[in-house]
């Protein structure tokens, strides 16, 4: 299977701080790929480099065999990349349906899609995500958990090839997590969308991801299947700064 996303030697500095240092990895088409690491490790920054919010200082981003390192974000979206934000960014005054429609209108099919088709796609996605009954409400009346799902709905409406998910499970109660994990699996398996996800909820990502990398202080310290990662001494050491997470690791083993 071909590599849908190739990240090569990415370095990103903010003034004196090196947020990412020589990070490389490859994601295969149709894969569920995880990114974990302590807070401040550079995970969100990595997403920002992948989807064009930041330009890397060195390195390349290759998406669907095209070097997109110097593309602006909107061009990447149109080429089939969609993302959700750790801190939700809904279009507050627009309705839930309109939020999702914007995803459809400006996604990969942007130059052929009609408003009616966009509405159709958006409603289907809302149905799939379970926001159907809120479709006509303005986005700002949703609660946090619904706003997270709206992020996902917007991203899905664009019918992307690659979905970047930044902590979509954070802040959800366990029952909601299970629903969401099921949803993500369905997105991947039924729609064939490649998923790269940043996640702190260990049991979920260990379950869901087929392969993953671990970031620590901007460096990639490990790569492999969840069970390989869970047995990697360097990863455990990195997480020892956070005893709670380390404990979860040990339990997982």
């Amino acid at each position, binding site marked *: 299977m071909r590599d849908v996303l190739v990240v090569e030697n990415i370095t990103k500095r903010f003034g004196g701080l090196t947020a990412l240092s020589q990070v490389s990895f490859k994601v295969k088409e149709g894969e569920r790929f995880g990114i974990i690491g302590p807070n401040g490790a550079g995970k969100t920054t990595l997403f920002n480099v992948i*989807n*064009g*919010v930041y330009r890397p200082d060195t390195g390349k981003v290759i998406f669907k065999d095209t070097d997109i390192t110097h593309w*602006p*974000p*909107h061009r990447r*979206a*149109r080429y089939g990349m*969609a*993302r959700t*934000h750790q801190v939700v*960014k*809904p*279009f*507050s*005054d*627009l309705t839930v349906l*309109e939020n999702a*429609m*914007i*995803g459809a*209108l*400006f*996604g990969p099919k*942007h130059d052929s899609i009609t*408003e*009616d088709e966009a*509405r159709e796609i958006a409603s289907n996605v809302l149905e799939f995500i379970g926001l159907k009954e809120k479709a006509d409400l303005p986005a700002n009346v949703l609660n946090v958990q619904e706003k997270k799902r709206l992020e996902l709905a*917007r991203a899905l409406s*664009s019918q992307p090839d690659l979905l970047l998910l930044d902590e979509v499970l954070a802040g959800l109660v366990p029952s909601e997590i299970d629903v969401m994990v099921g949803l993500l699996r369905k997105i991947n398996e039924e729609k064939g969308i490649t998923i790269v996800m940043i996640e702190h909820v260990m049991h979920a990502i260990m379950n869901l991801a087929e392969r993953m990398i671990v970031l620590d202080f901007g460096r990639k310290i490990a790569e492999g299947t969840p069970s390989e990662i869970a047995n990697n001494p360097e990863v455990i050491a990195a997480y020892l700064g956070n005893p709670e997470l380390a404990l979860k690791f040990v339990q997982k083993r």
Partner: protein
Amino acid sequence: MVSVFRRPGFIISTIIVLFFLVLGYLGNINAISRMYVSNGTDLMYYIGIGLAMAIIMSYAGYVSFGQAVFVGIGSFSTGYVLVLMNRSNIISYLAKIGSGGRISNTMLAVYFTESLLLAITISVFIAVVVGYAVLRLRGAFFAISTIGLDYVVMYLVKYITKTRSPFGGEELLNPSMGLTDMTFYWMHFILFIITIYVAYFVKISKFGYGLAAIREDEDAAEIMGVNTFRYKIYAFALSGILASFWGIAEAFRKSYSIGYFKLDKSIIMLVENVVGGIGSFIGPIIGSIIYYLLEWSFLTTVGQWTLVILGATVVVVVAFFPEGIVGLLKKRFPRLRKWLE
């Protein structure tokens, strides 16, 4: 989905257009009806500039203090076509008109079209070149930078008129072309139809969705595939073109004046949008009507006090209804939402 022609915004626009059409036909009956014609002309102008501003401010969320620059450019274009070009045929008309004649409709149409083309060209040029630089700024910074734009152009135009005006001053006077208030009314009406439907179709188009996304969260819009920079420039230019139309309309009616560039023109456009409510198509229309009615009724009732009362009204409105009338209506009567596009 419902056809465009049955959507609330389209129906409301059409009702307003029909209202002005009827007013125009009834206009020429007697002195009182002619007064209403003059009010109607003013009202079209106020709604027109409000909607022109709406495209950049209400739709895209970029507040421009300098949008009057485009009204000024329109006004100047007409002044240029009618006066500064020193055309012999206009001058010869002057002689004929002196004996009670009237410029032919064909020539009027030619001058009108020339003004439009000139104004569109200058507006697009300025909006694209300057917009390319200043549309990287956000919020108050963008707003202030447009003041710079407005005043640079204003003083350059002032210089041009001063050095080229046959009257020797900074102002220009139209040749008397024997036109009546009704002619001006219908000229306004043509531009009004263009403005209101362009504003509406922009709002409901894909472009309109993109602008709404920019207004609500520009970074998210960009990440979702909206070419934010290009859309902002388009919006700035389109807003400018529509604003310049109203400078043209008024300049045919009252002659070119440097006053069209002044900040208070932008501010009126801004107030109309804020009073009506940001984010909708209906809002700026309601805001413009209310602004016009307030100003007009104050002028006729309280005379000198107009500015004081108008200013105080703005302060009160902002303090108590920060979301404007449409925002207030949406909150109070959620079932009206659908009609408040």
